[in-house]
């Protein structure tokens, strides 16, 4: 009998000739990573794109460095408990810039509008963007608008691009996790994803779950001020914490061990996930971050995060170790062990 030799991380190449885009390519999981690697990175590749983070670290005239990040937003429904596509599009890109250790400065916004979309709804969305940008101190300084025929889009799609300057001494990347490092999470898992899920008409259940959408650069500034030796910051959006940690493990060439009992999850989110057969580890967040730091600074960093309004439920959830296979594993609350794999397929389309 010929036994399989599992090839870690092996993915059958994209079938460019016959294949078609399917919804899994937008899930944030392994299928999307493959599309980026085998198509976008292959043809558009350069030293900055090759950094493989959520934003690019760029040289700037003078001594400093710039970070540039972009994010498309296609969330459905456009309005959901705790937010809407407007504030989400501001928070999402600010967070991508901030996770690179940069102070976000400016945003650009591109709108694709569908013919027939109500101006009153558009006004609500733009007002929400304005409020979010003002609160964050990051103005929208340029933009573009296109309109497509009815049926060619779904109301409004928004793309935002952010630029920031790197704070000296804060060069972060997903490739800087080291064995012995500690993994911290800034709060409860899955709030955004389950808030969207509960709103989808077909499910027909009511829940008190509210999206966690928020700009995290303030929390990061506090973390930076603590002086802790932070190696990686990343916001676990689509694909959830599980996929984010797998990305980092791959980029850094390390393994990770999570403690299931330490993962913060709101009871309502936990119950909704249970009901729908979902795992909070894979559900999207829009106002949470993962921080990986030197073990000696973990407690100090945790205390700093908990003292900030966006980090009150922060927790130490695991540690980094050497592993040639780059597995993210977890000690279950039950006392066994298992892999925490990349998101496979798609949990819920158009989450952000």
């Amino acid at each position: 009998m010929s036994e399989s030799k599992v090839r870690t991380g092996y993915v059958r190449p994209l079938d460019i000739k016959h294949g078609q885009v399917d919804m899994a390519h937008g899930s944030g999981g392994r299928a999307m990573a493959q599309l980026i690697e085998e198509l976008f990175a292959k043809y558009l590749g350069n030293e900055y794109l090759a950094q493989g983070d959520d934003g690019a670290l760029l040289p700037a005239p003078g001594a400093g460095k710039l970070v540039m990040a972009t994010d498309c937003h296609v969330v459905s429904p456009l309005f959901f408990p705790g937010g809407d596509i407007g504030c989400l599009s501001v928070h999402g890109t600010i967070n991508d810039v901030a996770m690179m250790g940069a102070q976000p400065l400016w945003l650009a916004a591109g709108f694709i509008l569908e013919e027939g979309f109500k101006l009153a709804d558009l006004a609500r969305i733009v007002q929400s963007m304005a409020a979010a940008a003002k609160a964050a101190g990051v103005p929208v300084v340029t933009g573009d608008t296109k309109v497509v025929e009815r049926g060619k889009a779904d109301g409004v799609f928004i793309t935002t691009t952010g630029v920031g300057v790197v704070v000296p001494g804060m060069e972060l990347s997903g490739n800087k996790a080291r064995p012995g490092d500690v993994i911290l999470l800034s709060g409860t898992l899955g709030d955004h994803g389950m808030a969207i899920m509960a709103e989808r008409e077909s499910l027909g259940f009511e829940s008190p779950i509210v999206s966690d959408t928020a700009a995290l650069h303030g929390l990061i500034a506090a973390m930076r001020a603590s002086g802790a030796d932070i190696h990686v910051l990343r916001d676990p959006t689509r694909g959830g914490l599980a996929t984010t940690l797998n990305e980092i493990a791959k980029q850094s060439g390390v393994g990770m061990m999570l403690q299931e009992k330490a993962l913060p999850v709101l009871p309502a989110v936990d119950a909704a996930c249970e009901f729908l057969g979902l795992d909070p580890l894979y559900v999207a967040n829009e106002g949470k971050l993962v921080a990986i730091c030197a073990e000696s600074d973990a407690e100090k960093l945790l205390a700093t995060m908990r003292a900030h309004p966006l980090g009150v439920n922060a927790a130490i959830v695991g540690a980094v170790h050497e592993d040639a296979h780059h597995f993210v594993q977890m000690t279950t609350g039950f006392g066994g062990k298992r892999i925490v794999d990349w998101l496979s397929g798609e949990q819920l389309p158009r989450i952000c």
Partner: protein
Amino acid sequence: MKYIDEFRDGEVAKGLAEAIRREANPERRYHFMEFCGGHTHAISRYGVSDLLPDNVRMIHGPGCPVCVLPIGRVDQAIRLALEQGVTLCTYGDCLRVPASDGLSLMKAKARGGDIRMVYSSADAVALAQKYPEKQVVFFAIGFETTTPPTAVAIKQAAALGLKNFSVLCCHVLTPSAISSILESPEVRQWGTVPLDGFIGPAHVSTIIGSRPYEFFAEEYRKPVVIAGFEPLDVMQAIRMLICQVNEGRAEVENEFSRAVDREGNLKAQNLVAEVFEMRKQFEWRGLNVLPYSALRIRSHFAEFDAEKLFSLSYQPVADHKACECGAILRGVKRPQDCKLFGTVCTPENAVGSCMVSSEGACAAHYTYGRYKDVA
């Protein structure tokens, strides 16, 4: 979560693990099949095997609805969507099951098929009401647990007088699958699948009760313990099975007494009997064609039978030559014994059906346990 966390308690698990270690005779090996994918998933997700002694081995059974769905049935659904232009509704796991020509329902959707994931059969009926100009077909799969909701949907459609709703019925029966495994030469003659007992289905048993398993215990002398889908349920059932084996008993015991009794849900059974009847035969993936193992829609409800409405013929299609799903579903091989496992067959690009659903033996091992193969 109340009534859930209690059944996932690590401290209780430690105690049970210790009890199992004490009960298990170190002089012998124990091989138990968990019939249901729900149990397979629980075992992998919570790491139950890590708490079992080395001489207790769990064998994954065929009770994963999408795993036993043959290519020919998925092809029928795809043809309905792509060639007949229907709105095809089905449960999420079905979307990625590999079919002919490298297609799946998800890929057929990308080719323009109107294919929708629904959480319940009632959603499909609601869609038909909302879009009277569309033909809505519910691709109904699953064991006895999902059958009553399909019966409800058909009766609801009849009551509403819907002319644009029908069901492609692929519901299968648990006892037939258990018989097929017990009758297989690997179990009966060759002994290549040592089988000392079964963990019986949880949700299926809430419908059919514990009585149908009595035949297996008596006729084949195999103990059956019906268990819930929580990890402590599984551990407790394993302990009960070990006791039966040690004492030479072969009985049906019920660990899941909080939800299952001997007779099951009579109301649901009557509803199913009213709407469905036995098919003479049905092809299962991995278990081949089994007599009286699946249901079809009674002629009284023929106007809701997509097979009749769209004159569908059934074309059996062989699995990929190197795919071991059949042997894995019968407990003859383990996922890691298949040379496609983790190489060309992964959850993103499943070749076999066991790699699709989180309840499938291959997907469960790939997603939760493959670190053990390279350790």
